[in-house]
């Protein structure tokens, strides 16, 4: 037997410990944890732990409304062309992170990778579609009015203000994009309560928004339990409108509408069952959060 020196054995290379991302809220362009310090465990569709998501509190919601109100003057005063470009930019950045979002949606919604990828495609396309509306909606829903007098009389759409949105609970990315884009492309700012069980694509989307020239505060995303937070936002006197798309509980929807009547918020009512977000969205979500302003301008020499 030939002697061989014993060489030191190489220890088996340990697999690299991945760096997990702490899931936070998105308020005023920043990523704070919930002021409450609370979080909740988010699982994939098979019940495997994915992350601890921040559980937004009433105070977080109020902070988000303040941020949205602060951003409204600047965002609504931007030219329609500029807003369209910014929303288009969101689509570009989302497209660039396509694989990441496909993986997020796959995990969150328990889909095949092909189906998840198709949803990301649709989300990008939806953003592109709405981006184009920025400088067309006034031409479609505005008017000049042939009044019986020496006035140039015209009606134009204007954003209603701060829109609170309870995002769809099932469609974690396409549904979310489909409710946020129409609200903001016309100049509103929004506070969004994301899907409770599937919040992670929303948080990833926040990173896209933060790098897409969307001014801080235009979109604010709150993860957590909408049944806890939504009543505070529905009764908030500095919120102008509320979109209840993600509210499936009839009683909650009723309660939120009653609270919203305190300052006559414009209301987008929930559908009986969650919509097919792949369908043609129409202009209903654009016009739901628009006011019509009529101006009588004198004509004379």
């Amino acid at each position: 037997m030939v002697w061989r020196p014993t060489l030191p054995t190489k220890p088996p290379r340990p697999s690299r410990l991945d760096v997990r991302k702490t899931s936070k809220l998105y308020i005023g362009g920043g990523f704070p944890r919930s002021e409450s310090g609370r979080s909740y465990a988010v699982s994939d569709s098979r019940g495997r732990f994915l992350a601890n998501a921040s559980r937004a509190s009433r105070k977080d919601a109020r902070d988000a409304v303040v941020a949205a109100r602060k951003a409204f003057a600047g965002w609504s005063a931007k030219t329609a062309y500029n807003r369209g470009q910014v929303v288009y930019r969101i689509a570009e950045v989302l497209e660039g992170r396509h694989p990441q979002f496909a993986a997020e949606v796959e995990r969150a919604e328990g889909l095949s990778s092909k189906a998840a990828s198709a949803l990301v495609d649709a989300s990008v396309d939806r953003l592109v579609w709405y981006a184009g509306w920025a400088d067309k909606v006034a031409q479609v829903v505005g008017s000049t009015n042939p009044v019986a007098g020496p006035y140039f009389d015209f009606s134009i759409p204007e954003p209603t203000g701060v829109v609170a949105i309870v995002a769809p609970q099932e469609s974690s990315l396409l549904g979310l994009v489909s409710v946020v884009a129409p609200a903001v492309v016309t100049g509103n700012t929004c506070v969004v309560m994301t899907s409770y069980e599937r919040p992670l694509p929303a948080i990833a989307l926040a990173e896209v928004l933060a790098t897409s020239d969307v001014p801080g505060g235009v979109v604010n995303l709150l993860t957590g339990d909408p049944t806890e937070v939504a009543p505070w936002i529905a009764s908030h006197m500095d919120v102008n409108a509320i979109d209840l798309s993600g509210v499936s509980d009839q009683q909650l929807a009723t309660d939120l509408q009653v609270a919203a009547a305190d300052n006559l918020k414009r209301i987008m009512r929930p559908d009986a069952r969650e919509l097919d977000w792949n369908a043609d969205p129409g202009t209903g979500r654009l016009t739901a959060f628009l006011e019509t302003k009529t101006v009588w301008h004198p004509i004379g020499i």
Partner: protein
Amino acid sequence: MGFEYAPALESRSVVDLKSSYGLFIDGEFVDASGPSFKSVSPATEEVLAEIGQADVADVDRAVQAARRAYSRTWSVMSGGERAKYLYRIARIIQERSRELAVLESLDNGKPIREARDIDVPLVAAYFFYYAGWADKLEYAGFGADPRPLGVAGQIIPWNFPLLMLAWKIAPALAAGNTVVLKPAETTSLTALLFAEICQQADLPPGVVNIVTGAGSTGQALVAHPDIDKLAFTGSTEVGKAIARSVAATNTPVTLELGGKAANIVFDDAPIDQAVEGIVNGIFFNQGHVCCAGSRLLVQESVYDDVLARLKRRMATLRMGDPLDKNTDVGAINSSEQLARIHELTAVGESEGAERWSPPCDLPERGFWFAPTIFTGVSQAHRIAREEIFGPVLSVLTFRTPAEAVEKANNTPFGLSAGVWTDKGSRILWMANQLRAGVVWANTFNRFDPTSPFGGYKESGYGREGGRHGLEAYLAH
């Protein structure tokens, strides 16, 4: 400066007042189940007629009649035929304009000059305008096949009884809906005369139903399960209650509510014209106007001049018998409203604002309130925040356009605003900044059937008038 005017009374003989009125249901006048109430002339407190109070069962009958008319007649009729009925109604309104104007003035207390020259011509114009839409709905931009909603429940206020009826009924019918309309308790008479016009026009029974009564009648209408659409014009308080009550049913609603409009006068404005506009903005219809220019914002540099000319002009306003063609300011619509105006003006004084009215004799009987202005008003004063709905103007000042915008928008309301300046670019800049549904430049309180009207914020939602006004009555 005193002018003597000989009285120029419009004759009442054109109006055939009955001693009592029932409800208009299914094309016929029927007795109400509830107790009747008196409708008085606010100018004299004379009882004009007894009006039936519709209860829950009456409202139900009216809704059933509207439902039958909707499904059997009106929604299946061609748009062209519906249009012709509406044109016919518009023509009869023109034919009977004198009668309508006199009755409106009698029942509401508004000057005959306004009822005759503004209310009634506009009523006809709204019917004419919407008549033409009835057979063109597929071109209105609400989809290829816009459908009516069904039975509309409509509740209107007492300040423009006929005009508000026209704003509600004309677009609803043009779009193919049938209606149950409740006029205000104090001003039912012209709505019932309109019912007679519907009969004259051979409008199919049940297409228009009128249920008279007070708040309980309105509540019965709002709560009725077979109503497909609600439209309300009135106070913000009641509007909020309606918004709450439909939360569970998801009935579509349009609300046209209160206001506290700023009327903003810049130093380059044609001052005499602006003063006319200020007067028209707040004293038109005794200030019973949701979009009244009740907050005057004057640029400091012209404040003294504007105020002196405003007072001089106010001293020439003639107040008195609404049926006198010389009358500028008529009677307050009801003792309740008069009490509210007294209450808020007393608060204005106790909060430190300075009150002024021109010397003016008030008639002994009836409900009267002299045109009044408050100066030294701050934004915190209740008279600068709450809707008074009377001939009371709060005067504030500003230095820069930005300050004017800040003050104008500092209100939970957002119905209307006025801008007086000689500079077109400033008009459009101001219009852009003001959070209000209607912005009048170098004019005020002007309405047109083609021009959408409605508020931002707590002034309600939905628009009336124009193509936009159709949307509220179509499923799309």
